[in-house]
């Protein structure tokens, strides 16, 4: 106990350093959150307040902007919901069986197939957009929701296969072996074991796929214009608003961003795993 004085000064210095570092962490995090906070605040101001210099920090919140944004927001919301849900569903219908087969019946080629599927995700959209545009035009798919769903499925299918393969590989192999001994068919293994046991993985992957489809911009802007325009196209129309509709824009943007934020906060840990394709868990 002779070292108490020395260790106290060291721990004092440590404590101060810790407090400062924590403050710094909070400051940086606040700086990153600020643009969003500002957007949400502006959504509750009058147009004049939203555009005012110096900026207005204290005001009586109003809901008029949301009301005014709704008539144009709702059709876009409907399109975004259909495109995101439809493409996620299709990606799962195609991807779950593939993930199951690759995880439970791994052949020498399994890793190659997986890698190839992932590689299609790194195909820049600009490398395929020109023929897709012409094809869609000839097939009557331009500015339609089925067209958008087709492309979003392409975007999400490799993610679904890759993620679900990773989750299904974690199911103990002995369970499948036992089922086989009992004479279970491939279909029974799939519906009876793999699907129920990977439900948490399915939920996390679905959330990721929905977020990616919801936020997609490139295909939305180039393959839709009016009838099938999702939220990204709707917000894009505000790009030259020059201070005329900032409050209304903020309200529309808040409505667009909020669902993804809430889902993203809930699934934050799975998000990290999904974003790195399982390379960082």
């Amino acid at each position, binding site marked *: 106990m002779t070292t108490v004085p020395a260790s106290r000064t060291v721990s004092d210095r440590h404590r101060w350093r810790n407090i400062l570092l*924590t403050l710094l*962490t909070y400051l*940086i995090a606040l700086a990153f*959150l600020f*643009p*969003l906070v*500002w957007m949400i605040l502006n959504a509750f101001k009058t147009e004049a307040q939203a*555009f*005012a*210099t110096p900026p207005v920090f204290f005001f009586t919140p109003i809901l008029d902007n949301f009301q005014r944004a709704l008539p144009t927001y709702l059709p876009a919301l409907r399109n975004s919901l259909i495109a995101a849900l439809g493409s996620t569903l299709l990606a799962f219908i195609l991807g779950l*069986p593939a993930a199951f*087969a690759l995880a439970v019946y791994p*052949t*020498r080629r399994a890793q190659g*197939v*997986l*890698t190839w*599927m992932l*590689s*299609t995700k790194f*195909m*820049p*959209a*600009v*490398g*395929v957009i*020109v*023929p*897709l545009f012409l094809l869609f035009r000839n097939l009557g798919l331009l500015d339609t929701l089925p067209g958008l769903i087709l492309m979003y499925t*392409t975007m999400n*299918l490799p993610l679904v*296969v890759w993620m679900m393969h990773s989750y299904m590989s974690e199911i103990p192999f002995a369970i499948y072996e036992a089922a*086989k*001994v009992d*004479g279970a*068919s*491939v279909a029974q293994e799939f519906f009876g074991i793999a699907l129920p046991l990977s439900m948490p993985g399915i939920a996390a992957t679905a959330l990721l796929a929905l977020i990616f489809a*919801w936020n997609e*911009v*490139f295909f939305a*802007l*180039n393959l839709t214009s009016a009838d099938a325009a999702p939220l*990204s196209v709707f*917000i*894009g129309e505000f*790009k030259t*608003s020059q*201070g005329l509709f*900032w409050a209304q*824009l903020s309200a529309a943007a808040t409505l*667009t*961003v909020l669902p993804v*934020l809430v889902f*993203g*906060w809930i699934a934050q840990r799975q*998000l*990290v795993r999904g974003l*790195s394709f*399982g390379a*960082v868990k």
Partner: protein
Amino acid sequence: MTTAQSLPTTTTRVPPAPKRGIRLTPAALIWPAMLYLILTTQVPFFMTVYYSFFRYNLVDPTSRPFIGLENYQNLLTDPQNLRILLNTVVLAGGTLILTLIIGGALALLLNRNFLGRALLRTLLISSFLVMPIVTAVIWKNMLLSPTSGLFAWVSQSFGQAPVDWLGQHPMLSVIMMITWEWTPFAALILLTGLQSLPDDQIEAARLDGASPWQEFQHIVLPHWMQAIQVVVLMETIALLQVYGEIYGSTSGGPGIATTNLPYFIYQKAFAEYNIGLASAAGVLTVIFTNILAVYLLRLISRTTASNRGG
């Protein structure tokens, strides 16, 4: 592609029970997904390659002469296009470096125990979840605008003239915007990488009298390399494809100051209807990106393979 013939290599001691009705084989489960991806990615890409050898403009769709490599020659010899290539690299590289530095610092800061850590970690991802076009429109109007933007007000409060960010420093503005979006990604991947570092290694180094810098250099950094590689490769591939942020803020301007390859292709194809040239640029972008993707795929396969082994 002979997956159809591949049989399960797992040892099943009991022969499978006789099947009735439709018989599902593992290969039959893989093919629908494979076919879908081939039809929607490989086939259009080969069509892009095909179009790139023609002079093909939608304004005059009847004449479509084969011109060999002329589109590529035009792309690679026009000095303006070198600027676009440079813009693409500066935008991706600049953002990558900034997100690594800020994200790395944030990861180190968040890897400590303090009150509200879990909450901050959760909230931090927010800017990454925002739709790119929302980011662009919000930053352009409410933050960067020289008349009523918040940044203009801040510089005026410090007695400085307001800066016309998008007019005077367009590339820097776009980089700032995209850095805001991608820093949480870097921070969270790097944080996850840090958390798998065993505490006893750091304790051992401290007992040996290592300085914080030595500790960082010899223990943290080597352990961090894999997470850093993932961030570098994933971000590079994503940042080479930045489109919505530019579309919503600068529209590639002023002039071509913020036009990158994807935005250039969009303009050629959908404003000038120059299908041939846009296709050639698309092919070059794919080649460019794939060189990087090969390294990324090798890295991911290696780590997932080793995870399974361990």
